[in-house]
């Protein structure tokens, strides 16, 4: 039994990606793991005083979003695992794929940001394949 890693944030745009990951896991009989990365790099855009642990809030929200993803999978007859990591999204996805020794990584393509972002995402997919040996599905 293999492992499928689905990096997700939980918005409407992620539902398609989650559906694809659930479908793949059921088809292949693999274990499905939803990954949420608490990436706080958006905080670098302002010098406004940040004196609270904003990362904890993002992680709690990530836990909630993963719980939604789990429920979604359950409704489709699959029990999924969840994992939350902190750091830069790209690095953490690769690190999780390596550490969990997954066979397959499912990622969502950007829907709003145009061709350039899509190209960058495809390049990232190739990078994961090269570095981890896992097969990458872009949805």
């Amino acid at each position: 039994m293999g492992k499928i890693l689905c990096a997700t944030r939980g918005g409407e745009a992620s539902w398609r990606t989650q559906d694809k990951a659930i479908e793949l896991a059921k088809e292949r009989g693999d274990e499905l793991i939803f990954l949420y990365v608490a990436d706080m790099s958006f905080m670098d855009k302002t010098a406004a005083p940040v004196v609270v642990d904003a990362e904890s809030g993002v992680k709690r929200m990530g836990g909630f979003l993963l719980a939604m993803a789990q429920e979604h999978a359950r409704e489709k007859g699959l029990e999924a695992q969840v994992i939350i990591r902190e750091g830069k999204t790209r690095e953490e996805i690769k690190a999780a794929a390596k550490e969990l020794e997954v066979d397959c990584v499912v990622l969502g393509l950007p829907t709003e940001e145009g061709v350039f972002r899509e190209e960058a995402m495809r390049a990232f997919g190739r990078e994961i394949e090269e570095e981890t040996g896992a097969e990458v599905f872009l949805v």
Partner: protein
Amino acid sequence: MGLLVLPWASISGEEAATLIITGRVVDSQGVPLEGASIKIRVRDSQGVFIDEGGGATKSQADGSFLFALPTEIVAPPMEGQGELILEVSKASYATLSQTLDLEGMARIGEQLYLPLGDLILEHRMGAAFFIAAFAFLLVFGFISFRVLHETIAALMGAVAILGVSYLLGSSNPDFWIISFERAIHYIDFNVIFLIMGMMIFVAVMGRTGVFQWLGYQAYRVTGGNAWYLVALLTIITAVASAFLNNVTIMLLMAPVTIEMALVLGIHPFSLLIPEILASNIGGAATLIGDPPNTLIGSYTGLGFLDFLLHMGPIAMLSMVALLVMIRFIYGKEYARSREMASPTLLERLREDARITDPGTLRKALIMGGVTLVLFFLQDLLGMPPSVVALLGATGLLVWVRPDIEDMLQEVDWTTLVFFMGLFIVVGGIEEVGLIQMIAQFIGAIAGGNLVLATLLMLWVAGVASSVVDNIPFTAAALPIAAFLSRTIPGAENNVLYWALAVGACFGGNGTVIASAPNIVTAGMADRAGYHLSFSHFLRVGVPTTFVTILVAMIWILIRY
């Protein structure tokens, strides 16, 4: 000056020991100029300079100077054999050179006195002017369009201004912008310590989970009715933002708000965007709610109570307008709401929104109450707001006894450095006369009409703060408001400062990049998979900004 009739020694019949020359150096707006160099030179009747008059002196902080000359040096001019020439020079100003009229001399005791009154220096647009202006525009652009981190941009500007002054200005005065001592003088430590004190306060409060709990209570009380929920959430956000930093409020409220929206099955933006708008409006109500107000309060000496009495009603009226607009914009979305039946997610929501440290919360609320009372009494006690904030924050630290290393790490030093750098950059353009030039231009447009000046201040601040960062804008606009308040009849009631505060704070609602709460909330939403685009925010932000500033304008015109 050969017109002097009386020999100098005959004023009292015996020789005087010293001639004391006094005066005040001011700019064209009557603002005292510190550090101007004053020199007296003696020229004989052939026009040849025969004496430098005993060196030079510098004007004091109030622009005043006192020059003591031994009478033997000035003997020839006093006997009608030449002239005394006064030269006043300062970097970025045209040198003033004038012949002294010795007929105004008076003798008191053994001294002769010559009071000169105000000596006006006119700005000169030299290399220093353009370099300082360029540095300011660069910093302003970098901050507003997020090219560089705000702190790095402000620090870069400050260092550029000081670097040019010392590297080039020390050999060529045309390049002299500002000295290090003068730059430090521009840093408003009242603002720095007030922000620092409130940071400590909010850091302790933030650890208790109270804001997340309040958000969840709003959900519970309204029974999941989306419209009632958003109304309550916006009010909670506005009130909290009036007393605590609105960026922190949004950082704490946004995750729980997103979870509530998902439970209700509505788009998170329909709750998040009203909260952002409310945080900027609520922050306008008090001295400590939003950095532009803190800057204005410190610059003008307007206290906590002044802000609450003048800005509070404006914020409340604008909140009513905001709620009407939200209903209009998101009414259909709220109608779609449904309560998700998932007990797991509801339980998770409740768990995410619980009070984590009731003991600390109780202490923080008590100290918060004491601090609030001190803010109200601040004028009566003559206590600067920074001292009030530090008293409250330190009292809280002593009582709560958190790990001080942790606590000091939680003070966001980058913000404090940002403000220091910004103050120096704005000081630089004030020194070279750019601020005064803009003030004179706006004053000329207003033509002494207070209503026109108020409308200009309000709408220019509103539009500018929608596009560029409202903190550097306010820092640069304050001396302009001060000039107009001094020169326009009737402006002594501080109406121009209130107009600036409204414009700068409400303008923060115009675009997603206009203020820090907008940026961090957009970042939070993005982490939940909801990309808040510039155009999406614009569609809600621009009409809201327009309507709330309009409401404020009507109130200001009626009240003042």
